[in-house]
Every structure is written in C-alpha cells, then in structure tokens.
C-alpha cells in the first residue's frame, strides 16, 4: 500500500478523480439549500434526505475505503479523506463519513461490506457484552450517536466480563431514548442498547493498528473522520471570508485592502494550513501502526484551529454572517460541534501529553520523526 511506483500512483489518481467527480455531480443534483434547511434540526425536525442517501449508496461511495477484495472501491486513504473533507465543506447532512470509515474498519476486522448506512458510537459510558448460547447480548447506553435513530447499523466498542474490548456491529439498534441534535442541527441520538443482541460474527477483535490502551477503534475512527470534516468546514469558512473581504466595500474600499483584515485572514490561513497538514498525516496513517497517534495529533490540531477560524471568519463577515440567511453558519456551527465530538481537542491533547511525559524528553524527537516517516 505504501510501496507504489509512479505508474500505480497515476492509476490511483485517475480512480480518485473519477470518484470525486461522481461525488460532485451527486451533490450538485441533490444537495440544494432547501435540503440543507430541511435536514437542520435547529430549524425543524431534522429530515433524513432519503433520495440523496439512496443515490450515494447506489454509487458505492460508502465503500470508498473498503478494499476491492472486500467488494469496496479500494480508494487510497488520502483520497477517501478528500471525499470526507468534501462532505465537511458541503455540510452534507448524512453519515457518509461515518459509513466510509466504519465500513473500512469493519472490513479490516474481517467483517463483510455493509449494504446501508452505518454509524460510529462515541465512547461514553461503557457498553458491556455478555456471551449467550447463540451469540452476545449488550448492556449499556450510548449518547450523541450520529444519526443513531436513522441508520441500519452501529459500530461500538464494547467490553466483556474479562475487560477485553471488542468491535461490535449492531444491526438491530435499540430504541431511541432521546432524539437530540448537535449545534449544527445534525441528529445526535441517545440510544438504549440494553438487550440488543449480536450474532457471533458481529463481534470481532478490532485490527491492532486501530486501537490503543484507553482508546477504542470506533472512537479513533470517529476522531479521524471529524478531523477531516473539520478541515473541509474550515476551508469553506476561509473561502467565504476571502470572497466577502474582496467584495464588501466599507469606507470606500474593499475590506481586503485593510491591513487589519489581511492579518486576520493570514492568521486564519495559518490555522487552516496547520490543521490540513495534521489531517493529511492522519489520512496517510490509516491502516498502519501510527494511526491512533496521528489521529490524536489531527483531532487535537484541527479542533484547536476550528475555534480560531470560526471566530476570525465571523468577524470578517460582520453582522451578515450572524444571520440564518447567510450560509456561513452551516460551516461554523459544524466546527463548534465537530471539535468536541469523538473526544475534544483537549481530551486528545491530554492523551498525547501523557504519552509524551511518560516517554521523557529524549524520546520525543524520535517519536515525532517516526510519526511523519512513511510506514514502509
């Protein structure tokens, strides 16, 4: 996977272009401002855009990161990450990012490709599983599950009586206790999983690259997804602020000509560039031993950048950007939501800090260099 020559790179780039173009066409066809408004739980009950999901599902995009051998598209992770960033840019009101990562994680654990939407259950109060004669039974509650009440299946990190963590797919989700939303109006449902059952082959050991002590594979995959989406939403904010600064006239000249405005936008661009670099690294580390650490770095850096970028871009847009009418809020409300989902930046920073301090000062540099080097 990391030993591609130029010819293979070229072929991979061609497939990537085709898939990204196809996604672009689907978005243009189905994702209107009306659909975005109808799916916004802050405005009304969040609708599930069934036509759009069906079109996406028929296109095979949910299996973008599943290897061809497991009936997926087999995109390189860096390309799948671009697809997920595009979801973030467009504020796609569907769990396509969760399904892309979840399906690939499940495939890496030896499971089959899902046929419908899949979501990732954030780490909250522990979910327990108990062996029964014909399978497993679950016990626990899950909070803030993305589209938890609408999807066909959930992936959850669950613990057995011996304290061993398993990757579990639940295809008959429990009852929705509470339909809730994040600040962007995206469904984040509370589910009661007690009594849910899982067949023997729906309980698997997560691939060893995807989990570490204290971090389950579903939580890590969720953080990886959100880091990529955060980059996409930040790109949308920055592009909008740049356009606005070039077009909006005040005191007889465009905002862009004021040095104070230029410096604010340069600062925002720095945050976007750094966040992108960290998300690029995490993308490159999908499926190898650096995955959890690289994801921690990306979620930490993207989460930190999100607040700064949202603040600066709102300030540039003035009062107009504070309205429901202007689309900026679709990106910024997602930034304020996503930075706290699947572990806030502070939570991931804490994990990084504990690991670094445990290793000592001398070990830091070799760790940083290994993280950036290819998996090779």
């Amino acid at each position, binding site marked *: 996977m990391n030993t591609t020559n130029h010819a293979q790179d070229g072929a991979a780039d061609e497939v990537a272009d085709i898939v990204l173009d196809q996604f672009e066409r689907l978005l243009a066809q189905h994702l209107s401002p009306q659909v975005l408004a109808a799916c916004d739980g802050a405005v009304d009950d969040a609708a599930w855009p069934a036509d759009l999901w069906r079109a996406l599902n028929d296109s095979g995009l949910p299996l973008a990161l599943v290897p061809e051998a497991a009936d997926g598209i087999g995109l390189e992770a860096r390309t799948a990450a671009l697809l997920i960033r595009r979801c973030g840019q467009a504020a796609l009101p569907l769990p396509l990012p969760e399904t892309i990562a979840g399906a690939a994680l499940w495939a890496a654990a030896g499971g089959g490709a899902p046929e419908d939407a899949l979501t990732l259950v954030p780490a909250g109060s522990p979910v327990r599983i108990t062996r029964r004669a014909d399978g497993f039974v679950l016990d626990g509650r899950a909070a803030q599950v993305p589209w938890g009440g609408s999807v066909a299946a959930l992936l959850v990190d669950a613990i057995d009586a011996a304290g061993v963590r398993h990757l579990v797919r639940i295809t008959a989700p429990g009852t929705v206790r509470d339909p809730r939303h994040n600040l962007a109006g995206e469904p984040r449902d509370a589910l009661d999983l007690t009594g849910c059952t899982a067949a023997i082959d729906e309980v698997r050991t997560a691939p060893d690259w995807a989990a570490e002590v204290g971090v389950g594979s579903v939580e890590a995959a969720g953080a990886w997804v959100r880091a990529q989406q955060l980059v996409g939403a930040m790109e949308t904010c*920055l592009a909008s602020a740049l356009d606005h600064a070039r077009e909006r006239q005040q005191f007889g000249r465009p905002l862009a*000509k004021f040095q104070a405005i*230029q410096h604010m936008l340069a600062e925002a661009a720095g945050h976007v560039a750094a966040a992108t670099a960290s998300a690029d*690294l995490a993308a490159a580390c999908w499926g190898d031993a650096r995955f959890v650490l690289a994801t*921690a770095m990306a979620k*930490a850096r993207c989460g930190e950048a999100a607040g700064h970028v949202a603040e600066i871009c709102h300030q540039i847009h003035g009062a107009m950007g504070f309205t429901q009418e202007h689309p900026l809020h679709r990106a910024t409300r997602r930034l304020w939501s996503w930075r706290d989902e699947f572990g806030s930046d502070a939570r991931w920073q804490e994990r990084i800090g504990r690991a670094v*301090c445990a290793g000592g*000062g001398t070990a830091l540099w070799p760790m*940083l260099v290994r993280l*950036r080097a290819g998996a090779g």
Partner: protein
Amino acid sequence: MQSFRFSAEPLPAEAEAARAAVRVFLDAELAAGHFVPHRTSWTTFDAGFSRRAGAAGFIGLTMPAAYGGHERSGLVRFVVTEEMLAAGAPCGAHWISDRQSGPQILRHGSEAAKRAILPRICRGECAFGIGMSEPNSGSDLAAVRTRAARDGDDWLINGSKIWTTNAHQVDYLLALVRTGEPGPDRHGGLTQFIIDMAAPGVTVRPILDLSGHHEFNEVFFTDYRVPDAMMVGAEGEGWGLVTEELAFERSGPDRFLSDYRLLVELVDRIGPEPDRFQAVETGRMVAQLTALLGMSASVARLLDKGVVPGVEAALVKDVGNSFERAVPEIARRLVPVEPSLTAQGEPFREALGGVTLRAPSFTLRGGTREVLRGVIARGLGLR
C-alpha cells in the same frame, strides 16, 4: 476553494538514512562535551563544531562535488538540519553559508567566487552573514540606501548594514546594495555583493542584545572596494534574488525549533506523571509541532523540485514563529519556577531563562510577523 501545496508524502529513504549518520555524529559531539544543548541554539557561533560537521560531511550536502560538495538531495540536507536543531547543536558558524549564501553563490555567483568560497563553506570553514537590513530599512528592504558606485572594474560601497548576526566573527557578508534607481515598483536598482570582512573599508560595531549577549552588529562601509567578480547575479537583479533566498530562509525547521530544547527540558521537568493541565498543554504543543514538521517537510520537497512556494514558506514561518514564541509562555505556567541564566544544575530554569530573553527575536528575524502576514495576504489574493 483556497488550498495550499502541502502534502503528507513521506521523505525519501535516502533522507531518512542520513538521519542515523548525523545522530551518530551528534552523539559523539555530546559525549565529548562539545556543547550543552539547553544553553545553545542554532545561532550559537562555534567554529570548531562547524569544522567538525564539515569534516564529517554534513555541510554543503547539495553542492556539486567540483566545489567540495556531496551532491545529495535537498531533502537529505533537510533531515540533517532538523536533527542538528533537535539536538541543540551550535550551528551559527555555518548556518547562513549552508542555508542561503552558498546556494545563492552557486546559482548566481561568478566562477571565481564559486571556486574561492564554496569549497571552504563545504569544509565548514567559511561563515557568512546577511547584509539586508539597514538603520532606515528593517523589514522594508526596498528602502535600502547603501550604495555601490562603479569605479573601473570595481565597485565602491558606502553605507551601513544593521542587525548583522555574528558580523564580528564571519568571513563574508552577502549584502544587498543600491546600484541604480528604485523605479516605480521600488524593486529596481538593487544588487547583491559578496563582502570580504578581512578587506579594508569595513568596520563592525557590536550591538548587545537585551540580555547583554553580543550577536548583532552594525557594519559600516567606507569606500569599500569590491571587484565585479564578487557581484552575485546581474546588476539590478538583487530584489529577485533576495526574494528567492527568503523562501529558503523562511520555511526551514529553524523557524519553529529555536527553543525545542526548552520543550525537552519541560517534559523531563514535569516527569512521567503529569497533572491534567500539564498533559493537555504539553499535548497541545506537541500536536502543533507535528503539524509544523509536516508543513516544513512539504515545503522542502517543493523546493527540492525547483518550485519556489513563497506563500507556503511564509505560512511555515508565521505559524512556526507563533509556536516557538508561545513555548516559554506555556512552560512557565506548567512548572512554577523562576527563570535564571545562572541556575546551573537546573536545566529547565536555565533553558526557560535563555529562551525568555531570546524569544522576542523569533517573530522579528527573517521578516517580522507583520511582514509575513502581508506576504500571506498577497498569496491569498487580498492585495
């Protein structure tokens, strides 16, 4: 959609292989007690260290063999550079010559200058200083007033340069001087010359920094005579050359690793069981550093391919300087100590003292934060 030319492509195996070799060299230097990491920085001038680094083959890595170089890729040089910085090695006696003056002379210098100077740079025996700023032109380089006038086959230079790092110890300066009128864009009429500090007509006045340390200088030229062969680039092309040079000067890991040893001392001082505040803030710094390492390596790859990524380089410097400027401010909140330059035996206190006093320069040298943000804004299409 705004996008930047960064990528997460790994460094080539050749570059990663060089890492092991430079670590062996640095370990031996440390074992011999040649430098104390938390007391040095990349501007620390140590002619002995540079000579040994040159002898070991770590200077002039990208130079042609004909001029004493090693004909390795820019990415090998990048790896050697970041290892030196991370180790806290005293690189001041070869840094400028290796990073920018040598490459400039190779690309734009006369054959005589290349033969006279480049082999000595590669041996680590030739130090350069940068002669850009002047008393009345700091960040505003187009305002350069030091003038070179034709005198037969030579030029006569009069004027002065300021903030010239280690001018009292270097062999040469690469100076930007006025040879003609600025023209409507103010970028015309500037030319670069190699100034031999041993020749008559140059005097150096020390400027002590706020800690009493002597690194800065003011340099005066009085009818300083320089032959045509020491002109770098064509007459009037100085602005373009300096701009190109700055992409190299601004994107390297020296723009965010100036106080890396303080971070190392901080981690050791906190110990293996940080409290939550210490863990969060340490992790935040390490995540920022990880992103910068990726950005800097990306720019190095672009430079190696012959692309001059001005905006990306400016972003590395601006984001990098903000990071290194913040490290001492965060460190002092995580461990309650009083910084001191004379706290021998307490490396964290000592490092915090040294960095606190040096840190204001981080966001000034090589282009102030404000100038860099202007460069970024131009790249974003705002001016």
